[in-house]
């Protein structure tokens, strides 16, 4: 089924109209809320929790302005006509530019670098980004970006897949909650510098569960029920062709929450990416409370007081888990090839694969000799010996990685950790960190040297 551009715009115009209307409403409510706050300020003296804010009026006006802008965009979107929707459509040069950037085999490199870079900038500049005005502008921009991109048929067709809608929601929910947590952490960190207790400690008052908690829970339940019913009415659950074991869809994807792991299959064989890695992730998560010896930051938001734990967890969760789910869901098409967000999923896209094993690098390219090979008529033991000799560079490298790095770390950057944790706990922490680091390491090696396997033992199904 191929739609013309007009038909496509018609098909998304209803959604976009409602979306802009919701954005207008959101800003209208914000404007009203700020205006109420400004009014209240005239009557109440400022307190520590609510300091005087002389810009409330301006902020309220800013939100009102946005509300008006979105309210104008809404009917434009509802019109569904190409000319009316031109101002809220994705400009062609953007489509071409992004397509150009992601063309070729650099897609995953660019995507991963950009996401890590963006998260790093947000983290380092967190004091700036958590400010309500900045956060509100960023939030609005994120939502408008989604709406504008939705006018691109290739983008829309992937984002609107019923099972992908929750992932879009998750991205925005994660952005919101990360802001919420970071904003409180920054406040607490500033207070700690002044020798003040965290905000969570200010209100030590005990209240009765009935009515305060019970009513909050009731309202939450009603809200969730309403959201679910609305979602169920608006969006039909997917149902494709009846199951047919003879017809493999291309791409074949696992359920969305496992797509980060499926993405790792590009870099590691299934025994590692699909079995060992998930087990290590679950075990590592369980180990967190027993490895984190830092007594600070128990029961309140903070970043500065537990920077190592924070950065490690965020790297694992936001970078390695969430970012790669997004990549696997939205940007991986037929044959698990990378496609830019505005690119059409072309089954015939060819990406040259010329990946090389480390043993090939070592024996053939550096030593200029053929790889050691067992004579055809030797026994199993001798064949294994030859295979290990052939892969010795990779085996030594990996052995060194897991045995030499921990003591080096224990005597340098992690000296305090080692002293506080003892040998066993430290070794577990170091092993988990090194295992986690293997993912970005292998990716970078693949991107920069086309490295396929560090240890290539296909005869024993043990490639690494």
């Amino acid at each position, binding site marked *: 089924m191929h739609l013309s551009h007009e038909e496509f715009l018609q098909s998304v115009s209803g959604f976009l109209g409602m979306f802009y209307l919701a954005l207008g409403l959101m800003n209208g409510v914000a404007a009203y809320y700020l205006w109420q706050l400004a009014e209240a300020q005239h009557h109440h003296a400022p307190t520590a929790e609510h300091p005087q804010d002389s810009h409330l009026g301006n902020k309220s006006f800013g939100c009102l302005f946005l509300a008006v802008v979105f309210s104008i965009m809404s009917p434009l979107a509802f019109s569904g006509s190409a000319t009316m929707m031109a101002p809220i459509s994705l400009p062609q040069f953007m489509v071409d530019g992004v397509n150009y950037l992601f063309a070729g085999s650099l897609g995953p490199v660019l995507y991963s670098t950009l996401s890590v870079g963006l998260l790093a900038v947000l983290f380092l500049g967190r004091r700036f980004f958590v400010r309500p005005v900045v956060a509100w502008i960023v939030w609005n921009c994120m939502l408008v970006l989604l709406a504008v991109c939705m006018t691109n048929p290739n983008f829309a067709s992937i984002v609107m897949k019923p099972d992908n809608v929750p992932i879009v929601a998750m991205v925005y929910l994660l952005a919101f909650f990360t802001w919420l947590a970071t904003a409180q952490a920054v406040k607490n960190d500033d207070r700690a510098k002044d020798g003040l207790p965290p905000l*969570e400690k200010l209100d030590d008052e005990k209240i009765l569960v009935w009515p305060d908690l019970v009513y909050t829970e009731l309202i939450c339940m009603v809200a969730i029920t309403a959201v679910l019913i609305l979602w169920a009415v608006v969006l039909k659950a997917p149902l494709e062709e009846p199951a047919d074991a003879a017809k493999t869809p291309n791409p074949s994807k696992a359920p969305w929450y496992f797509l980060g792991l499926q993405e790792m299959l590009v870099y590691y064989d*299934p*025994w590692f990416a699909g079995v060992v890695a998930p087990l290590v992730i679950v075990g590592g998560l369980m180990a967190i409370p027993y490895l984190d010896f830092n007594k600070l930051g128990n029961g309140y938001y903070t970043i500065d007081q537990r920077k190592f734990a924070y950065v490690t967890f965020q790297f694992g969760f936001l970078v390695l888990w969430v970012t790669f789910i997004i990549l696997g869901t939205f940007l991986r098409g037929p044959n698990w090839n990378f496609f830019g967000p505005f690119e059409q999923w072309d089954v015939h896209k060819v990406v040259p694969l010329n990946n090389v094993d480390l043993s090939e690098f070592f024996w053939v390219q550096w030593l200029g000799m053929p790889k050691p090979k067992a004579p055809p008529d030797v026994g199993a033991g001798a064949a294994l010996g030859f295979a290990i000799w052939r892969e010795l560079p990779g085996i030594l490298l990996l052995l060194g990685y897991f045995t030499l790095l921990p003591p080096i770390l224990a005597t340098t950057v992690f000296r305090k950790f080692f002293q506080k944790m003892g040998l066993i706990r430290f070794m577990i922490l170091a092993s988990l960190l090194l295992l986690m680091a293997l993912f970005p390491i292998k990716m970078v090696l693949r991107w920069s040297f086309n490295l396929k396997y560090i240890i290539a033992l296909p005869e024993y199904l043990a490639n690494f």
Partner: protein
Amino acid sequence: MPSLSEHIKNSQIWKSIFRHPMPVDRRNRIVVVLTNFFLHLHPVSVKKQGIALSYTWCMGGVTFFLFLVEAVTGVLLMFYYRPTLEWAFKDILELRDVSSMGILREIHRWGAHAMVITVWLHMYRVFLTGSYKPPREFNWVVGVILLLLTLLLSFTGYLLPWDQLAIWAISVGSNMAKAHPFLGSAGPGSSLLSVGGINLITSASDARYGLLGARFVGEETLNRFYILHCIAIPLAVSLLLAIHFWRVRKDGGISGPL
């Protein structure tokens, strides 16, 4: 002349159910939490800060509520669904096109996606507030198992519509078990487990076979996943949820600065 509501509240039936007057004063607000089965999950009083939405995000509660929604809609859906090759897809088709209760399937599916997301957000919040630290270490471990079970619940349910999306997603996922070191027929070291030259680990005896009940995703798998999805995993989740909530209380309630 007492009003009707007075009359009801003074009746023997009402009083046998609710053993105290309406919770409008301090004493009865305490009593209601202590005597009501559903409310006694809660303590009588909590720190005001501990239940602030900006602090807890209410994500644990929302996840639990979604679990209940899934249980109720799931039981109702079971009335309409038969896990066999002949009927599974047709029954879903009927739910979509014919049955007036068809929207149950949408609520169930979106609720499942939402539950995966809220359970992540709950874990995210617990980590960011350092709430896994002593004395709550063990409850974090229980939580990680619950997270895993939530994913498995969603994974096993994914197969049940028996359409292309379902079987191929499960095929891709369960193919990983084939690569299990030692225990998967295509995994490293599996050829080591042999007796007298005969491999013990084959495609008809390996980890994937154990998961699927067959060499590939077929009717045995459908039956197996159906039972896991509707009975086995929900039972395990219920037990662990009880422990999780119990330990929240025993470990000092909702976390907060010491």
